[in-house]
């Protein structure tokens, strides 16, 4: 499966490259939508205001917030265009290392950012811009009467968690170890969506996902915070990709994510501040 995706990514990258090369060869001027290779840091007007296009690769859990932030950024900076690509953090790292044209990478964990750094594809030092903690998701009616993390270990309670291989599952593991509570989940899903799906369909009594996932799910689930969640705080780092052709614009976007406006949007979505 990895390989299949890699190939698709490689094909897409190759396609984008061909389009880009063709655009350059044609000597096109002005803001070509197809090219990410344009830099206009030294604008004709002499100001340092960056323009042009960048592509942001962001973890799937950032979809709502980054879509909003990118829209605001484009509005505040005329002449810029932000293309967004959301997927699992490890998928994104794979895509970037296979040559996908990314300018900014926002990861859901430090581990995947470290992977990209190992591949020498991170420009500068990544900045942590958000945190996320686990929350118990139940149906609004809370049929199994779950009120604490310990309740999840009660016999007969059907709990669905993320597999330890994915960030939310790793966090679950950490909380279990720190509290000494061992869960017997009925399923270890490979994505938050699948955990929430099992809860909303009523198959499972409770699921462990991030606070922000509960927020995104809206009325379909109820979130139950628990104190032990601070044992596993997940940190979101963001960085410019080493191969970016428009690092100024990339830096400007990262600045917008980490400034007070950005913090507000993230906090509204349930993210914490590091």
């Amino acid at each position, binding site marked *: *499966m990895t390989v299949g995706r890699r*190939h698709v990514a490689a094909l897409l990258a190759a396609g984008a490259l061909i389009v880009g090369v063709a655009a350059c060869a044609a000597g096109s001027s002005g803001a070509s939508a197809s090219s990410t290779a344009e830099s206009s840091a030294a604008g004709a007007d002499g100001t340092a205001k960056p323009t042009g296009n960048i592509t942001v690769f962001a973890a799937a859990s950032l979809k709502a917030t980054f879509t909003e932030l990118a829209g605001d950024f484009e509005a505040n900076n005329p002449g810029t265009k932000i293309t967004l690509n959301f997927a699992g953090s490890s998928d994104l790292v794979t895509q970037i290392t296979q040559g996908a044209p990314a300018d900014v990478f926002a990861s859901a964990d430090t581990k995947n950012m470290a992977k990209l750094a190992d591949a020498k594809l991170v420009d500068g030092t990544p900045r942590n811009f958000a945190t996320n903690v686990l929350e118990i998701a139940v149906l609004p009616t809370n049929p199994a009467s779950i009120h604490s993390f310990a309740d999840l270990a009660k016999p007969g309670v059907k709990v669905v968690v993320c597999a330890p291989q*994915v960030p939310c599952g790793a966090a679950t593991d950490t909380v279990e170890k720190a509290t000494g509570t061992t869960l017997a989940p009925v*399923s270890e*899903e*490979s994505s938050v969506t699948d955990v929430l799906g099992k809860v909303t*369909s009523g*198959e499972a009594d409770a699921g462990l996902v991030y606070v922000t996932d509960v927020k995104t799910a809206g009325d379909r689930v109820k979130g139950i915070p628990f104190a032990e969640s601070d044992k596993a705080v997940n940190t979101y780092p963001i960085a410019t990709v080493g191969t970016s052709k428009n690092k100024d614009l990339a830096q400007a976007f990262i600045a917008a994510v980490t400034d007070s406006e950005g913090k507000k949007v993230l906090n509204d979505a349930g993210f914490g501040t590091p």
Partner: protein
Amino acid sequence: MNRRSGTGYTGIPAWIYAIAAAGALFVLLPLVAMVAKVNWPEFIPLITSDPSLTALGLSLRTSAASTALCILLGVPLALVLARSPFPGQRLLRAFVLLPLVLPPVVGGIALLYTFGRQGLLGRSLELAGIQIAFSTAAVVLAQTFVALPFLVVSLEGALRTAGNKYEAVAATLGARPGTVLRRVTIPLVLPGLASGAVLSFARSLGEFGATLTFAGSLQGVTRTLPLEIYLQRETDADAAVALSLLLVAVAVAVVGLSYRRPGSAAPERAAQ
């Protein structure tokens, strides 16, 4: 053109071979690329790790079970579709074949609303003390759902090719319908049934979407090989590639050993 030698004239224009070669490459190249990516020194430890073997064992067991279920349900379906015309037959066929074109996730959702805790049948099953969700039975159901059309299509084709002349003769010789089915119909279409079963097994082995949506993912219970690959990919690309190769090898072995050419499904005819 020595490619045309052999048994005789094929009537295939030369350029067809070029496109056929491209088509074959299109399928083979990704497999070659995957093989090239395998971390060979680690290959054996990777595929013999406990989660891998558990997933492989579960995949083989559930695929065998769902193939059996496909035969149990698919043989009568194919017989009804091929032999007795009735109103709504075309519609029934269309619905039986639907999982072929349906995204597996959709199948998983449909199964969830049928056999899930809140589902159409699930609620009654739950009252009867039977819980399907998150059980190995759910995996078998998901696999059967997507694999059944393969068996029905193969078998119905074989039944239509064989025709019902032999059955008519058998009946006039005094054989009851049950005897005709057992001693004439089934043996006649056995090659078609076998290839249908093999296709069903292979499809079950590769089932991912419906299982993920409907059955969940727990080692030894519901996490089949494709789900294990999907999960390993998150952290360990080498393991994912090694397991992918293992899955390909098993599928090639199963299909290659037992899938016959479509033509061989027709019964041999007495020399005239």
